[in-house]
């Protein structure tokens, strides 16, 4: 598999990271090196193996459907970039 400059730009867009032309070229070289390493995985036949997503074989715990959080809006919004009247401000989404 070889990665193209367009792949890098497409993935950067998916990840919502602005990337310039020069930066994309550097990223292409470095990511190609890393994918060279990753390709070693393809040499192993794993058709009979079950994927392992987790180190411990445990099931998701459930809890009662009760309120556990108190209202700390002011505290939490004290670290926000921009708030007004208890709301987080972002640029207009709908024209």
């Amino acid at each position, binding site marked *: 598999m070889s*990665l193209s400059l367009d*792949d*890098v730009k497409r*993935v*950067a*867009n*998916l*990840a*919502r*990271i*602005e*990337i310039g032309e020069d930066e994309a070229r550097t*990223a292409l070289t*470095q*990511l190609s*090196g*890393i*994918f*060279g*390493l*990753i*390709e*070693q*995985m*393809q040499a*192993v036949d*794993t058709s009979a*193996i*079950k*994927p*392992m*997503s*987790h*180190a*411990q074989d*445990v099931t*998701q*715990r459930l*809890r009662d459907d009760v309120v556990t959080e108190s209202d*700390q809006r002011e*505290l*939490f919004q*004290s*670290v*926000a*970039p*921009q708030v007004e009247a208890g709301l*987080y401000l*972002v*640029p*207009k*989404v709908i024209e």
Partner: protein
Amino acid sequence: MLNSSLKQLSALLAAKKISSVELTREFLGRIKTLNPGHNAFVTVDENRSLAQAQAADAMIASGQARPLTGIPIAQKDIFCAKGWLTTCGSKMLSNFVSPYDAGVIERFNVAGAVNLGKTNMDEFAMGSSNETSFYGPVKNPWDTAAVPGGSSGGSACAVAARMAPAATGTDTGGSIRQPAALCGISGIKPTYGLVSRYGMIAFASSLDQAGPMAKSAEDLALMLNVMTGFDARDSTSLQREPEDYLRDLEKPLAGLRIGLPREYFSKGLSIDAARAVEAAIAEYRKLGAETVEVSLPNTKLSIPVYYVLAPAEASSNLSRFDGVRYGYRAPEYSDLNDMYRKSRALGFGAEVKRRILIGTYVLSHGYYDAYYIQAQKLRRLIAQDFAEAFKQCDIIMGPTSPTVAFNLGEKSSDPVQMYLSDIYTIAVNLAGLPGMSIPCGFGEKNRPVGLHIVGNYFSESQMLNVAHRYQQVTDWHVRVPENLKAGL
């Protein structure tokens, strides 16, 4: 006093020979002197630390002291601590004062320990040299031309330079063990699930695990007694009976079967590191242990598997940093999408962006099976290798890192070379096993070498025993760099 063990400090406090305020001032003074040259701490807040020390002194005076009450502990800047700047080594969080405490921080608070400050680290714990920190690299106390290792490089440096008696770290692919090895201190990553991940800024959630870094195995045991325990707010926290990790420290090692994986002693291991590790194993034979050769045939695959799974999880975890509710927001942007794209472009450093791109790619349509699922299948093979090996031995030993600390700047431009330096530690995270590093000598340029000890699930107590007995007959763990002895 600055060079005392946690047990000694605890005894001094209990006997009222010193107060927590005095002790905390001693360490703050040492930090003031040494931190400018080492960059181990990114945040020191004397007032907050001293207020905690005063509270600890009150606890001691009222007879409510616990083993770590009044002892200052350095906290890796990945743990949210209420009222403290919590940056995770990133510009993205350079303005983030945490509104809450992580589970680990809460446990130290309940124990009456003092938060001595927040330690430097690779950005979002992504790195093996501490060079990806937004706050600049940490220097290795043994040789300031060398890296301290990473990502918990600030914590390792703080303990090695005796700026803190002990510290916390986190380990996703070796981030406690490798810096411990490179700085000549002890560190343990417990079994996945033993220490709460609540409030510990997430990198790769199925691999991240916090643990202590300290001078000795005995100190690690005291720290683990505080750090471990169930936390309902962490969905993978394990519900188990509490353990006293001090209980087995003194057990004799006669009959202990040490497995030596042949893949850990082959090509790639430097001669000086090999020599120190082999000498340590010879010491274990003298203590009555037997050695048996074992095999972990899929060791080599652990790096490619890790560099699929960890970036995949990271790309998902780090999508929360969007410049809306907290963290960095770009100064100029045209619309919402542009705000996301610019905030993330300016807020994240190069290595973090690289890993987000890898993760996004391997999870994207058409590549998911070939990369992510294939990596999860190989993860099972890697875990099975350990299960097979533990049929023949009680504990596994080898080098923590293939070389002693490399020079600052030596590998920072070549990510692949940097990734390969974690060859011995990564598989342990993939399997979820406990792993540990203790100092076992010095190699080239008089830089420290670490002995890697890997145990079976929940065998921390035995691992600490194995490390403690070694530290009773050797003195590597009490060595301090010559130029830092003044004032100790």
